[in-house]
């Protein structure tokens, strides 16, 4: 991956479309089901991951020449845990109601496959700017996926969006239950695969 030279724009598109964390790589699915039953939680979760992804990529890229390859895994772990603690404490201080709902999953970002994978395969081998762009792309991909999933789940399950009533009653209660989360992720994944095959010949939306 690192040996192909890509422009910054291509790196972002790669993260958002062709290597989208949830819909294409199918990793970090745990929060995509656990916290997406309303838009607000999904949004905050997405923002947190975006922040951590970008900051970890920057940090790892900056110190990549000083890390002994033999102990790189624990080093990455420490970096990720550090940034997660920062977002965790910030949220605990300034967004208390949401924090009550999703604090467990915020702390779980430490163990996210997607963040770790980008640090390992990209940031530790690339310069600052490409790593930053990769982080933005990957984080945005995750963020958009969370928004799309939680949009449909809250709208269908509760008939509200961001807590505001849109549809009267509860049109499809199952969507805010865990089973509905699997339905939503599965159907959206299928939908994006279909778009990919139908319009891009199965090569990924960025054409890479």
């Amino acid at each position, binding site marked *: 991956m690192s040996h192909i030279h890509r422009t910054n724009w291509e790196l972002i598109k790669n993260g958002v479309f062709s290597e989208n964390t949830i819909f294409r790589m199918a990793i970090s699915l745990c929060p995509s089901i656990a916290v997406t039953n309303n838009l607000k939680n999904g949004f905050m979760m997405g923002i947190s991951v975006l922040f951590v992804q970008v900051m970890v990529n920057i940090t790892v890229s900056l110190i990549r020449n000083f890390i002994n390859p033999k102990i790189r895994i624990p080093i990455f772990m420490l970096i990720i845990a550090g940034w997660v603690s920062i977002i965790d404490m910030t949220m605990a201080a300034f967004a208390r109601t949401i924090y009550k709902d999703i604090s467990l999953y915020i702390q779980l970002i430490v163990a996210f496959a997607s963040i770790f994978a980008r640090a390992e395969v990209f940031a530790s081998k690339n310069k600052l700017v490409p790593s930053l762009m990769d982080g933005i792309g990957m984080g945005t991909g995750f963020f958009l996926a969370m928004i799309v999933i939680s949009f449909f789940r809250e709208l269908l399950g509760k008939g509200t969006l961001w807590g505001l009533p849109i549809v009267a009653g509860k049109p*499809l*209660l*199952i969507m805010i*239950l865990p089973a509905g989360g699997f*339905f939503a992720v599965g159907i959206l994944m*299928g939908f994006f695969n279909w778009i990919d095959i139908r319009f891009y010949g199965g090569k990924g939306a960025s054409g890479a």
Partner: protein
Amino acid sequence: MVEKKEHELIVSVSPHIKGEESVSRIMWSVNLALLPAFLMSLYYFGPRALLVTLLCIGAAVASEYIIQKSLKKDVTVSDGSAFLTGLLLGMNLPPGVPFYIPIVGSVVAIVITKQLFGGLGYNIFNPALIGRAFLLISWPKAMTIWSESTAAFVGLDAKTTATPLGILKEEGLGKLIEMFGDKINLYTQLFVGNRAGSLGETSVIALLLGAAYLLYRGYITWHIPLSFLATVGVLAWIFGGKSGLFTGDPLIHLLSGGLMLGAFFMATDYVTCPTVRKGQIIFGIGCGAITILIRLKGGFPEGVMFAILLMNCFAPMIDRSVKTKQFGAIKETKK
């Protein structure tokens, strides 16, 4: 289309004797076996029952046709499996449901549970039951409004009431006997099907009639239904009583709820039950145990649906664990 394919694919050693059985023949036979129960539902719940069932069947067949067309598969609507899914789903719904419910249920059953998993023969779960579970979880209120069984076409508005199992759970056996007069009358009415409940589940005698036909034709075997019913009976007898162990009333548990419909027509679904006989008995016992667990301790009055769905997950594992040994195989010795 189906017929032609079967002829093309015959590869076998002699003697080349071919039975008349085929997927569509079996499916239509099961549909036929459900006819008595369907007629009883018309008798007790009136034209509304016909409408709900027809909506289910229509939506199931239509969505099978559309999804197979759009996925560019062979259209196998005529094999009767979608028809059967629709019919079974219809029989599992309360009579008074609003009309979008049968349609959504059929679409979920056919599109998500059956076709997205690869079509007939590849589904992990019983499509009709997933359809019903989806509906029950999405619209818990509309799915639990039971109307009283009024002898059909009287023209009266049906009153709503609780099912016998609901009454048993909330108010106990005494209240139930009080409602029906005496115990014998209670059993008779349950046996004939004069009670509140889902459309096709109420009439035990009609369901047994259909089941007898299927058993006679050899389309289902006794293993799953018998072990299922026996487990429910025994566990209801042991744990069902209020005054201690071994004081429960097994008959009331056997005759009420969706047990007969589930045990004979849904747990025996070829695709989603184990194929080995020994495994089928384990499957039936598991279904029975979960049913009683939900009925006696769970939040719902009825647990047949969830019991069968849960055991569906275990079917492949059960099959693997009871695999018969090859003749002459030697047990591997540990070194």
